[in-house]
């Protein structure tokens, strides 16, 4: 019965990954809070991680699993730097709403 509702094929997992990526991308486009945009960026990274693991599982290799560690490391470093920038920006502008951060407007 599980296999009827959740087909255990590669396409399903890759499809899920694509959907998660699209949601993350849309979030980056649309959301106004910088922290939420950041969360959506993380969602995109996680979606690509899921795709890697699915390929690794269905091809029987360890390469995808190993790559997950790399992705997580990069994500962590990126978050550290990015949050530092956001904090500095908040201190300067007293806001993290993206539509109010338009000092570079002509």
């Amino acid at each position, binding site marked *: 019965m599980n296999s009827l509702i959740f087909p255990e094929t590669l396409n399903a997992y890759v499809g899920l990954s694509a959907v998660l990526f699209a949601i993350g991308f849309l979030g980056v486009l*649309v959301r106004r809070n910088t922290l939420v945009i950041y969360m959506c960026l993380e969602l995109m990274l996680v979606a690509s991680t899921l795709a890697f693991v699915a390929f690794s599982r269905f091809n029987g290799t360890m390469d995808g699993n190993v790559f997950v560690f790399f992705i997580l490391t990069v994500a962590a470093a990126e978050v550290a730097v990015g949050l530092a920038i956001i904090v500095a920006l908040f201190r300067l502008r007293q806001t993290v709403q993206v539509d109010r951060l338009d*000092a*570079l407007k002509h």
Partner: protein
Amino acid sequence: MIPSHLAFLLLSLPLATAGLIAVCLRRQGAVAAALSVATAVGILAGAAWLALGDFRFEASREWLSIAGLRVSFGFNFNDLAALMLAIVAVVGLCVHVFSLGYMRDDPARARYFAGLSIFMFSMIGVVLADNLFMMFIFWELVGFSSWLLINHWFERPAPAAASKKAFIVNRVGDFGFLLGIIMCYHSNGTVNLSDLAVQASAGTAVYSRAIPLLLFCGAIGKSAQVPLHVWLPDAMEGPTPVSALIHAATMVAAGIYMLCRVEMLMVHEALLVIAAVGTATALYAAFCAVVQRDIKRVLAYSTLSQLGYMVAAFGLGSIGGVDENGRALVIGAGVGAAMFHLTTHAAFKALLFLCSGSVIYGCHHEQDIFKMGGLAGRMKLTFVVFTIGVAAIIGMPFFAGFFSKDAILALAFTRNKAVFAALAFTAVLTALYMVRLWRLVFFGAPRSEAASHAHEGGFTLAAPLVVLAVFSVFGGYLSLYPHAFHGVLGNVPEAAGAAHAIVFATSLSVLILGAGAAIAFYKPAATDALEQGMPAVFAGLVALQESFDAFYTWYVDKVQQRLAMVLNFIDVVGIAGLVVRGTAGVAGLAGLGARALHTGRISTYVYWFLAGVAVLWLFATGVL
């Protein structure tokens, strides 16, 4: 000293003087005047040495060479140039000395003398030039000097307008002149005068009717022939010594000198046209001179008339004379007659103008002859020399003008009887208006306050008058001229036999007729006897005089001004508006558009990022 170097020194000395005055001596009028007079003395010395020392040379240096066009700078010093240089030097010195006295109270004396020096530089350049391009450059410089000097009292509107008119009308003639030079260069491959002479005698020159007629356009402008004569009467707004030097003796004679220089290019039809224009000018100007009130205007129209004589003499030189190839014969007689009259005219016309300057100075700048009178007793020297000048111009026997006019009438009698009749009638009018002037200025009772207190102007005003009077008396005797000028004056025509008697009789009779009519008709009075006695004739003559100016004014106002407005519209709206500002506007709009992309909002940039990714994807999959 090498003659060509002396010639170069003669040319550059007045230029250096003018430059020095312009740079350092603007306020020091006396020093500038002395320097300018010294230069004039130097020029006379140099000219005398060159002319009388029998130096005849040509020297040339290439100045400009652009893709086949060669313009050189050089001197061609033959008998003709020697004669003209001598005239310019002598009359120039007389005018310089006269100006010392006449302009002694003028605050802008330095500028005046600088202008005189620039004029001497330009005129010597015209005289010595060995090719037509160089002559044209100095021709324009002479026009500029004329503008500068007419414009001496530029604070008043009349001299400013007169100088502009002189320059613009001259420019119209110079346009034809330049076209002629270009055509000559194109047809003959050279504009060098001696090369053209060589080509002409070898028979290889190209003869067309256009070239001499176009070159004559320059003479029409510069020597004030009809229809471009309108600037000369107005040019009397300049100081009187300027009128004497430039507009009587030298600059206006430059046109005739140029014709004599290019006589090898003449053809029969061109000479007919030249003679016709000259005769028409002589007659027209004589009619206009009869009704003038201003002493200088009478002399100006008289100058126009005499210039017409000279041009007609040149044109007559070869009418009817054709050699076996059908080409007009070398017109030595025309050149001789024209240059002889030019020489005597320079003497007596400069004398008359300087006398009028003396009269104007003595009457405290009164120029209306109907407000003068009784000056014979008050200004004795001026009266005597003025009488000599009048005698010379009307052709009294034994004076200079008699011989030169006789030569022209003799030439006309043998070549073209119609021109002879016209010139003889003009001589009647000449005697009429000159004796009228003489009577009204010097005789009767003084008719104004200024005239009753008239006085002579001093030595510097008197000495040049005496010198020029001597030339006016003895200038007609060809045997007194140095042999150096034989190349020109040896060709002066003389009638022979029965023709001689007829011409002599005609000269005497026109003189007696004109002078007698003037003496009988014009009593010294405060009003013009012609205006009182024959008002219709007077009005007709005045209308004749003003006709050309009226036509030109109409043309400028109605035709040229409208064309100028159209062009102005095209310039302002089309070129400046659409093309220039339009291009700037388009660039500005593009900038505005590009600026609108920078919203400063991160979401916008992310959308652009998405668009960029989409384009890249389309490229990658091969759709684009």
